[in-house]
């Protein structure tokens, strides 16, 4: 009897008085949806802006949630995060965080490695955070915009990036763990999407526009959106998208093809002096916009359309590769990675001067577009 009593008391004590250190009532947390990092007022400090969920209106029938911005300054990222508690009654909670926006000046001057350190180490912050660069002067002004479809900018950015894969394929994104992989891996340069503020009719809103190119972890420039789109063809990261082309050569695009499936196969070879790359794109499309009067049942006109699209694609891909080669000389396509994976000894030889090799690389592109159908009408 006494034994049972003792066990009961011990278990009661151990459960109620211990172990509840990590107990977090959901109302005692400020949930962060997105973080923007800018330079702080003093040299060497950071200004962090947190977009948090304001739940005060949420209970009750309408259930509206509103974003709330909290700013904080600190000498390191984590310092700034903790200092935010000077303003808040609850602790910041990062498990729902979806976006990290970085000021482009900061990225250019300091590099992003120290900025993402904390988010990689902390166990609350997830590996699925989207890292983006702000195309405006500061990062935090993106949070001032009202998103179109959802309540939070952080969430909107994340959803734009996620959906883009299946709709447009204009954004090359990197989750934070992929960023880490890129930075520490040989043979590929990091790129991150850029978000800007644009006018949408009356109200301003955010929009993705191109990518930022990095040398190691410092940003050196940006690539326009169109170039990014075609560079995705080179790296086989297209899921869906459209191809337009100009059939009658009158300067106006009159054909739009929706890509159903596309696969890019690349092979790389080194002839002692130059890198030679062969790229082969196989796509299967649906023709959704054709010049009026074209007869789709006619084999020759279908062939004409696909030939024109193929030329356009090859030309654009060449353009995008050339652009990166001349403007930045940074291998964003991952050609170096391909060499590393096939033959790492060769890579060790070439890696020191890889930028030069990349700049002088010869690329040969072939494209084959197969028009499967033309939608509901001929």
């Amino acid at each position, binding site marked *: 009897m006494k034994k049972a009593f003792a066990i009961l008391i011990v278990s009661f004590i151990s459960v109620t008085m211990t172990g509840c250190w990590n107990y977090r009532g959901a109302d005692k947390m400020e949930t962060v949806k997105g973080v923007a990092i800018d330079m702080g007022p003093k040299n060497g400090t950071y200004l962090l802006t947190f977009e948090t969920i304001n739940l005060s209106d949420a209970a009750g029938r309408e259930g509206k949630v509103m974003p709330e911005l909290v700013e904080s300054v600190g000498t390191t990222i984590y310092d700034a995060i903790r200092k935010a508690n000077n303003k808040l009654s609850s602790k910041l909670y990062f498990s729902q965080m979806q976006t990290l926006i970085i000021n482009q000046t900061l990225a250019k001057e300091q590099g992003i490695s120290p900025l993402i350190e904390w988010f990689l180490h902390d166990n609350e912050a997830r590996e699925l955070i989207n890292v983006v660069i702000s195309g405006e002067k500061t990062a935090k002004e993106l949070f001032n915009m009202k998103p179109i479809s959802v309540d939070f900018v952080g969430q909107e950015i994340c959803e734009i990036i996620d959906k883009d894969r299946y709709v447009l394929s204009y954004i090359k994104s990197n989750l934070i763990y992929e960023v*880490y992989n890129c930075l520490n*891996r040989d043979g590929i340069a990091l790129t991150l999407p850029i978000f800007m503020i644009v006018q949408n009719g009356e109200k301003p809103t955010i929009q993705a526009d191109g990518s930022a190119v990095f040398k190691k972890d410092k940003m050196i420039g940006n690539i326009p959106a169109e170039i990014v789109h075609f560079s995705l063809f080179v790296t086989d990261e297209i899921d869906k998208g459209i191809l337009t082309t100009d059939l009658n050569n009158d300067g106006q695009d009159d054909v739009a093809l929706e890509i159903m499936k596309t696969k890019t196969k690349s092979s790389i070879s080194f002839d002692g002096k130059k890198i030679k790359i062969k790229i082969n794109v196989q796509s299967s499309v649906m023709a959704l916009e054709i010049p009026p009067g074209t007869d789709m049942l006619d084999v020759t006109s279908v062939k004409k359309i696909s030939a024109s699209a193929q030329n356009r694609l090859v030309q654009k891909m060449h353009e995008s590769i050339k652009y990166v080669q001349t403007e930045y000389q940074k291998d964003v396509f991952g050609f170096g990675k391909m060499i590393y994976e096939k033959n790492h000894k060769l890579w060790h030889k070439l890696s020191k001067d890889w930028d030069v090799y990349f700049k002088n690389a010869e690329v040969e592109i072939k494209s084959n577009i197969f028009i499967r159908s033309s939608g509901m009408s001929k």
Partner: protein
Amino acid sequence: MIDRESINTKQAICILSLLIFGSSAIFGSVAGSAHDSWITLLAAMVLAAPFFIVFSRIIKLFPGSDIFDIALTVFGKIAGRIFILLYTLYSTYLGALVLRNFTEFVQVATKPETPQWAILIILIAAIVYLVFNGVQVLGKWSAVIMPIYLIIVTATVILAYQQMDFSNLFPIASSDTGVMADSAIKLFTFPFAETVLFLTITKSLKKSQSPYKIYMIGLLIGGAVMLIVFFRNLFVLGGPTMESELFPSYTTIRIVRVGTFLQRLESTISSNFYLGGITKIAVCLFGASIGTAKLLGIKGYKKALFPVAVIMAVLSQIVYKNIFEMLNGLSLYRWIALPFQTLLPIIICIGAEIKTRKDKKNMKPKQSGNQEPQESGAY
């Protein structure tokens, strides 16, 4: 009469496999050569196979008894007792190590503010309860846990398919051969050769069961599961992340998502770890308490159970100062563990062989005087 002590072959295989991948699946890779960890894993398996044959031979020569009794029979009272002492110490040490791995994981990955001893108390309670109920319950527990474990691993692999990037596999074998050999030895000592501790509970095996089958099938299943886990982590995470994360399997699951609904499934992998870890520590605790009981001349291991459990728990807290020591400790641990896993079993095996041949020659009935499971009476 009612058979309360024996475990059948399937249950034994489950115990063995859980011993192998129970705590290693959460680590998911080996430091130093994360990228090629699967090659080192295969090498470790090949390295372990002959030793498993040695282990099985020991049981085959003396069916129905455990390594403590064999040591006593083969080497006599004094040397035998030294063997028992050594293995008891090893069991306790290993149990403390795994306990520490466990509480570190819980603290680091899920609850940073909870002190480790709080987690420890609950954990020890469950494990002591398991060991208290005997080997047969351990066998049944493994038989119940194994399908759950396998289903969860399979499910995570299937769900992770979308996030897998198969090019992460290349380049193959790009790490230094020296580093790879180093990792292979690490994998050999932790976890494969730890199955020597299974010999402490072999009293529950009957003569008709083949220990070779148990060990070999256990090796295959355990190795296969670990291989699958390694591959899954490699494909999803890629080399650099796998290298830098403390618990790559856990990180992999955090990334896995299917659509918007099926995500954030890390609780599944952590439950796997809890279940596997409990089994492994339970076997260590068995070994330690049975050994202690034999050393001190106590009949039955239950009386020795609680003190040994407490010692193991306390030891787990003091054995390392922080998590870095724990991770580095693996390099030191293997040199300590190697003699227990390789040298001593070989000595025992040779001794057992000699003894049985001698007995056969002398036509003594001692060879057949192996204790039947029921007569052990001690449990």
